[in-house]
């Protein structure tokens, strides 16, 4: 709340005593210049950030992706090697393919499970009743804590050889194993961690469900539609823009999992590269092995992949996302 006053130094107050003419500001002439200057004054921090923190670094990294650069090299020593990094990546680096596979499996398994859980719980929590707010809040809690190191540590303890999960399984006579240390299962534990945080898409689903007009259900039941037909022919089409929104958001986030994989594997992506998510591999090459040029190339391939993915998602969306009239979502 102290924040409101924190904005104080940014803008000098100007009472502006000039003769105010009503409506003049909105015209194409006069007021435009004044607002034009003010616009750029207010925009200046963002513009600086765009240039200094986003655009220039990105162009620099594009350049460096064609060089053999490590943070230790001085700028005179930067050697242009053309497409060598990219060639190496696609033809001489099995770990690159490993990272791509791990990331794809992670996202393709986790995102649908997460969205299904989110939708199921949202449907159950849709109607207002006493205490529903508490349930919504508690289901959302893991999403808030989810990205933290603490929970990744808890996860490795839960799924360790002598961890609580195996104790639980022993209850049913199943002998578990050290899940986090087994190349076949380590990624699975990360997927469960990701699905566990279904609260954020759930809340978005809840908002979407609220916007489905009640009359549609009434009309459908008058026409004799069974509850399952109502679900498939009313709820799902009406909800499709929200499903799409969640799908895009969670897919992109799914491609960026880093903390849990880093912590569970102690920064290695192990066991046997089974949790080597792409971002983790990028970090390893860039900051553990100091091959910034190669890491820059990895980053640009990643960026291109996310761009392509977004385009693909949006173009398939046309076939199943239903936008009701006046729905500007």
């Amino acid at each position, binding site marked *: 709340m102290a924040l409101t006053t924190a904005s104080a130094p940014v803008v000098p107050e100007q009472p502006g005593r000039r003769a105010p003419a009503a409506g003049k500001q909105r015209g194409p002439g006069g007021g*435009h210049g004044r607002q034009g200057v003010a*616009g750029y004054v207010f925009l200046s921090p963002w513009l600086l950030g765009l240039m*200094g923190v986003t655009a220039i670094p990105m162009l620099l990294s594009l350049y460096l992706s064609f060089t053999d650069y490590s943070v230790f090299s001085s700028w005179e020593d930067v050697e242009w090697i053309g497409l060598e990094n990219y060639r190496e990546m696609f033809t001489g680096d099995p770990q690159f393919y490993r990272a791509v596979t791990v990331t794809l499996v992670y996202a393709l398994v986790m995102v649908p499970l997460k969205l299904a859980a989110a939708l199921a719980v949202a449907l159950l929590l849709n109607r207002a009743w006493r205490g529903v707010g508490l349930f919504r809040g508690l289901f959302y809690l893991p999403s808030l804590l989810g990205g933290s190191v603490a929970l990744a540590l808890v996860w*490795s303890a839960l799924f360790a050889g002598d961890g609580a999960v195996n104790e639980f399984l022993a209850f049913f006579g199943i002998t578990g194993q050290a899940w986090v240390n087994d190349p076949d299962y380590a990624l699975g534990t990360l997927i469960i961690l990701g699905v566990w945080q279904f609260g*954020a898409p759930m809340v978005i689903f809840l908002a979407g469900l609220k916007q489905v007009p009640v009359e549609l259900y009434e009309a459908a039941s008058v026409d004799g539609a069974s509850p399952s037909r*109502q679900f498939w022919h009313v709820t799902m089409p009406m909800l499709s823009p929200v499903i799409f929104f969640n799908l895009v958001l969670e897919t992109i986030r799914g491609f960026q999992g880093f903390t849990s994989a880093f912590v569970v594997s102690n920064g290695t992506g192990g066991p046997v590269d089974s949790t080597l998510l792409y971002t983790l591999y990028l970090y390893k090459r860039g900051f553990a092995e100091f091959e910034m040029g190669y890491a820059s190339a990895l*980053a640009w391939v990643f960026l291109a992949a*996310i761009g392509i993915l977004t385009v693909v998602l949006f173009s398939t969306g046309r076939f199943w996302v239903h936008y009701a009239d006046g729905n500007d979502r």
Partner: protein
Amino acid sequence: MTAPAVARLATIRRNRFTIGQAVRLAVLIAGLLLVLYPLAWVIGSSFKSDAEIASNISVLPTEFTASHYTAGWNSFDVSFTRFFINSSVIALLTVVANAVSCLVAAYAFARLRFPMRGFWFAIMIGTLLLPGDVLIIPQYIVFNTLGWIDTPLLPLIVPKALATEAFFVFLMVQFMRGIPRDLDEAATIDGCSPYGVFWHVILPLSRPALVTTAIFSFIWTWNDFFTQLVYLNDLEDYTVPIALRLFIDSTGQSSLGAMFAMSVLSLLPVFLFFVAFQRMLVEGINTSGLKG
């Protein structure tokens, strides 16, 4: 009439309300227990003896001990006092820098007419989709070239003061669009410049958006690992998440209790924020798709 899932459950049963609701409630409670178990377990385990942590899946300790908290606090050459101070300083500076810079940028986008406004707005939306992981290498190189790496506060705070968190800019633009334009016009007629409108009209009315932004940027910064891992190289500068990671680095299973105790403490600020702002957080992400 009813939500479809409820309707489905209800028609299976003859007695629409009581049985349908009971089944739904049972499913929800079962789900909730499953979701909350890991959190309850880590809190309970932080009070268990070392031998008990690994083998006991129950939440409550059989023998209660608080010794992990004192031991954990002093596990490393630098105590957790320092790590918590570092985390707090970084989080608070980030919150203020982020809120101020995003607010002024949002005001320009939402309210002012200036040349190329549409173009810049499109760029801003584009940066929303830009993954932070892609930017970290080039940013590191730039900050390294500027010699900022030895003063780790600069690379962590400066980007926030320059409104690079496009998400919050977007959130505030959306919020400001809901503030009636009549108010701007009235203030303009009364002689306010665009700066005066910002100061007297938009800033006071943007308080809810500012609070939402502050809460989320605090939580995100507190939980952040990637950026801090990259820029903090000196034990003295470590934040809580980076320090927590030392537990798996150095000591292994023997200090599980200490690790859990510090994990619980690290989650505490976020949890307290959650309790205090639960309503706002859950409602706040409705429109925006925020995520922790």
